[in-house]
């Protein structure tokens, strides 16, 4: 049985847009930040505000969205943010500027011993960490509402109408449909193994043993998915997938004025970021004076 995202129709501006418009806009923002490598807060903060506004406009109920938001916040703040602050990795090499003033050091020692080292947190690393958090949130907040506000029946059609081949469109469609199903299956398997006394969070032994003991959690879902796959293939072959008229295309999509408007904004964002970075040298990583002065007085 396929589980879908918690999609439901809502009378909102976001859902009145053509699904292609939303995918193109998402792509434009992601490409704008990642292809020219934008790390400038003067560009990232306005884009973050646009993403946040679109998330609010999508009017997704809090009970539906709180779990993915919580996951994103934990990932962004505690994993990526802390990692950026301590290591400075994941961004441009200028973050690791050895001349950047040290704000404080974090002692990382093996408990009960004097073994370990002190990790300096510099102004550069701290500012990079803050920038990285907003940069990731900008992209995540645009992507999160899509499964909740886009009809799952339209995924394949949207990719097809954007110019992808039948097979690639249907692969994307199926992948997006199977994703929540497999997340559910993994959670069910985890609960079933816990009921048998398997404490997956308290795995003992070395790293090899820990990975090996994940097998009872992974194997059932992967093997069941191969069986499901055979059934889906049978169903598709019975409907002569790939040989005749595209019966899986659900509706004929049409752009309206609002779609052209949003796509134009997306293209302007992308071209603008590329032009700023490559044409004017604006958009790279730098530490604003107010941030440096805050720590150095």
């Amino acid at each position, binding site marked *: 049985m396929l589980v879908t995202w918690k999609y439901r129709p809502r009378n909102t501006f976001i859902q009145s847009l053509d699904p292609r418009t939303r995918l193109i806009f998402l792509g434009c923002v992601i490409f704008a930040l990642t292809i020219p490598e934008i790390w400038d807060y003067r560009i990232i903060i306005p884009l973050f505000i646009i993403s946040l506004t679109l998330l609010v406009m999508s009017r997704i109920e809090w009970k539906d969205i709180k779990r993915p938001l919580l*996951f994103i916040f934990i*990932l962004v703040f505690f994993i990526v943010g802390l990692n950026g602050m301590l290591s400075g*990795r994941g961004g441009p090499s200028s973050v690791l500027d050895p001349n950047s003033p040290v704000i404080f050091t974090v002692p990382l020692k093996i408990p009960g011993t004097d073994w370990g080292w002190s990790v300096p947190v510099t102004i550069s690393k701290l500012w990079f960490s803050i920038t990285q958090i907003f940069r990731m949130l900008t992209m995540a907040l645009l992507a999160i509402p899509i499964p909740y506000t886009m009809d799952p029946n339209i995924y394949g059609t949207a990719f097809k109408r954007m110019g992808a081949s039948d097979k690639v469109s249907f692969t994307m469609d*199926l992948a997006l*449909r*199977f994703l929540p199903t497999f997340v559910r299956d993994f959670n069910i398997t985890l609960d079933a193994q816990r009921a048998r006394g398997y404490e997956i969070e308290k795995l003992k032994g070395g790293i090899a043993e*820990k990975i090996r003991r994940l097998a009872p959690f*992974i194997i059932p879902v992967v093997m069941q998915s191969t069986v499901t796959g055979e059934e889906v*293939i049978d169903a598709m072959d019975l409907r002569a997938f790939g040989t005749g008229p595209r019966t899986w295309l659900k509706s004929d999509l049409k752009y309206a004025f609002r779609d052209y408007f949003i796509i134009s904004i997306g293209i302007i964002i992308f071209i603008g970021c590329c032009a700023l970075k490559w044409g004017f040298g604006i958009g790279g990583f730098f530490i604003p004076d107010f941030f440096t002065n805050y720590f150095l007085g």
Partner: protein
Amino acid sequence: MNTKTSWEFGTRQVVFGAIGAALYGALSYVTNSLFPLPAAGNVTFRPAVAVLIFFGVAYGPWVGLLAGFIGNTLGDALSGWGFYWNWSLGNGLMGMIPGLVMLAITNYKAQADIIKAVLWGLGGAAVGMLVASLTEMFVGGIDLKTALVGYFTPSFIGNAVVIVILLPILMIAFAAVASSRGR
């Protein structure tokens, strides 16, 4: 289970490419959020990589390529990393290269075939992560030493450990499923 040629792209490849991509994304999401494995230095262990290699070995290069590329793209987009085409390409290659050995695997329980699959899986991980790391020199402006020491080595070691441990288990389990299905 095998098709006539490794490079056939029909209904089977569409379905298993999609399932592989969804499994890769779902397993990455679940393992990252519920019980992240400890890492040493920059080395991270992603159990989902074994599933990707398995899909390449079992269903061919197209399935491995689609599962790696789409799975990595979906996972990155949904979790806010954005789109890093070179890492998605690297993940695609990591799934595609083991797929080239598909026709040579006849018995998923046989030791020789398992070793063959693991070696091709390690080759896929090496090539995929090397391509992603080296292209990072042009995308991220890093130098060769950082690409090899800071990016390639930890990502390859982490993936290799997962492949060596989990891929044989997946193959033996799959042998039982395949024989019961008669395909």
